[in-house]
């Protein structure tokens, strides 16, 4: 290759010096963590001994009334591949991640809204064994536990990352650029769910830090509900004659290809209504030291139920009947009573709870595209704790207006039908790039007086600003209707929302 002229080489060198520091500032997709302060260690050998002695607590299978059952989303009997185990640690927690040979594999089927219709797609579900040791700084003791880590990647991540996703997600180590869900099963129950984007945890719900049995079951039910918009297909795990896993040979039932290699076709699996099948006693706090066979033993409650990072605490921080939750319930009941006829179906499907997966907003919901047209699905709204009463009233009123619009679309059943029954709402959704939330806000802007009426009827005695300015919160100010207001009014509204911390900055 001909040498570059010296002047060009010098200029390139100068440019490199300018670019590299900036490139260094750009965070990696998965940030390199600082050298962990290792106060605990866990070897593969120790993890194996624990697994073999405590295998029963994983509850990958259960015997109920003499019949073997595989709990929801459990892999069945597993064979850990200890030779591929990976050790890691972070802070006071050490883990050993172990790839397993399962009896069952799963696919997660979701739907997305494209070109005016819902389209189903599936992603593989990846599961592995994780054994954890945690050091308790207060007592100085080490506690161990184990769970089945279940990874449900987002569609984008799944399509761009072939092979075993579980290999790239290390419990107390690097998560790569993983985007999707991570669900931790212990004793056959989903005890923790975490959302990831580009390798960063963006939210979680945990039952590990529940104070008592009732709270634990409540949190587990919330986690199950979070997964309720996903259909899971279970099939016997298929291996090649060489004993290799087949990751790419799964015949997608949605493609119409029904050759399952001699296996039974995949079965859709659902969580049991009773998380302890055959043991209704487990809904009551245990009063005796003995427990029916097939359930969990007392020791299970006290064994190593541990998180990758326990110190961050649970998202749901309040017991069900906390004063704040009670106020939310009262506000919701008041609003519901005023608009009951316009939310006749959806009102029985929705729950408002203190706690939010996204800490940067005052509220978020479990709404997906499935919920826009399917009237059978449940919805949960999480309200950030610590809001004052003004914020709670305005936020919930706004969400109830969303529910009114969802009732319209769910009654219609499809975008096409919505177009015939309420063309204005369909147009608002369509012109906002089929962003339902933005479309609703556009519609609300044009129907803002209806929200004001709701506020006045539900909450009499508030200030004029509460009704006239507060109604524009929640995104309705990003609408044509707001834009047509006199500038002085726009300014006052924005000031009111800003002063009441109803806008992020």
């Amino acid at each position, binding site marked *: 290759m001909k040498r570059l002229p010296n002047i*060009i080489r010098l200029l*390139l060198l100068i440019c490199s010096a300018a670019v590299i520091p900036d490139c260094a500032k750009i965070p990696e997709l998965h940030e390199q963590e600082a050298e962990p302060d290792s106060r605990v260690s866990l070897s593969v050998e120790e993890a194996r001994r624990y697994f073999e002695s405590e295998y029963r607590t994983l509850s990958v299978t259960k015997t109920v009334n003499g019949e073997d059952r595989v709990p929801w989303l459990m892999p069945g009997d597993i064979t850990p591949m200890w030779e591929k185990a990976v050790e890691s640690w972070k802070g006071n927690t050490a883990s050993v991640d172990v790839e397993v040979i399962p009896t069952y594999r799963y696919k997660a089927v979701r739907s997305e809204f494209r070109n005016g219709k819902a389209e189903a797609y599936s992603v593989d579900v990846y599961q592995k064994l994780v054994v954890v040791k945690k050091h308790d700084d207060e007592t100085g003791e080490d506690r161990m536990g184990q769970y089945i880590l279940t990874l449900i990647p987002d569609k984008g991540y799944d399509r761009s990352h072939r092979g075993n996703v579980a290999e790239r997600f290390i419990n107390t180590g690097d998560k790569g650029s993983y985007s999707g869900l991570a669900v931790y099963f212990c004793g056959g129950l989903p005890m923790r769910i975490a959302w990831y984007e580009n390798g960063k945890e963006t939210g979680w719900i945990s039952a590990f830090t529940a104070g008592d049995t009732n709270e634990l079951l409540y949190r587990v039910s919330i986690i199950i509900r979070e997964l309720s918009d996903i259909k899971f297909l279970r099939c016997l795990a298929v291996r090649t004659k060489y004993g290799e896993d087949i990751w790419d040979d799964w015949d997608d039932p949605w493609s119409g290809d029904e050759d399952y290699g001699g296996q039974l076709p995949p079965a859709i699996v659902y969580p049991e209504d009773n998380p302890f099948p055959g043991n209704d006693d487990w809904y009551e706090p245990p009063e005796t030291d003995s427990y029916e066979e097939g359930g969990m033993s007392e020791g299970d409650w006290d064994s190593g139920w541990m998180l990758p990072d326990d110190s961050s605490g649970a998202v749901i921080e309040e017991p069900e009947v906390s004063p704040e939750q009670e106020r939310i319930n009262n506000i919701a009941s008041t609003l519901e009573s005023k608009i009951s006829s316009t939310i006749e179906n959806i009102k029985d499907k929705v729950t408002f709870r203190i706690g939010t997966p996204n800490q940067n907003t005052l509220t978020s919901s479990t709404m997906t595209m499935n919920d826009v047209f399917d009237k059978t699905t449940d919805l949960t709204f999480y309200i950030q704790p610590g809001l004052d009463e003004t914020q709670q009233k305005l936020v919930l009123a706004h969400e109830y207006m969303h529910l009114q619009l969802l009732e319209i679309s769910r009654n219609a059943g499809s975008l096409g039908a919505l177009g015939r029954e309420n063309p204005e709402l369909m147009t608002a959704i369509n012109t*906002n*790039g089929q962003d339902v939330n933005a479309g609703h806000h556009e519609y609300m802007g044009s129907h803002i007086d209806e929200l004001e009426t709701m506020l006045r009827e539900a909450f009499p005695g508030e200030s004029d600003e509460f009704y006239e300015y507060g109604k524009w919160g929640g*995104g309705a100010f990003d*609408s044509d209707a707001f834009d047509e207001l006199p500038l002085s009014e726009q*300014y006052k509204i*924005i000031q009111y929302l800003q002063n009441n911390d109803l*806008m992020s900055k």
Partner: protein
Amino acid sequence: MIRHLVIFFSFIFCALLSSAQNPVYVVFTSNDLQTDFSTVNFPVPDYDKSESRDQPHMFRLRNRPVKFFRTFYYDNRKDCPDNPPIVKPVSYLDTVEYCDWDKLCPDLTLGEAKALMDEWWEKQVYFIDRREIKDGMMRMYPVLEMRSNY
């Protein structure tokens, strides 16, 4: 030689693109009329009056045909370090990359506008209103976008 120059300038371009933390300078001509494409510079507080110092200074970008509206504000408080706004000669714009909103706005789709706002969300944004240019000097407002948080 030409090929080497092409490589060199491509490198410069990539260097500028990769410098993700550079501030964004947005130049516009404010327009209080209710037109389809405009930027509204809310009534400018009189900085000589102490009471106006506590009022946030609002801006609103608008592309009505695609239903795009965004509100920005400049924190006009007494203890704000940029109070009053930064004043620089207009020639400063010759030394930086700036976005001419008057030209850009009408051609944006809704998706492009939203993506641009997401990009700005991560950076320091300065608004410059051509109507406030006087005697070769311009005001630069460090602004923040206001978004609903529910």
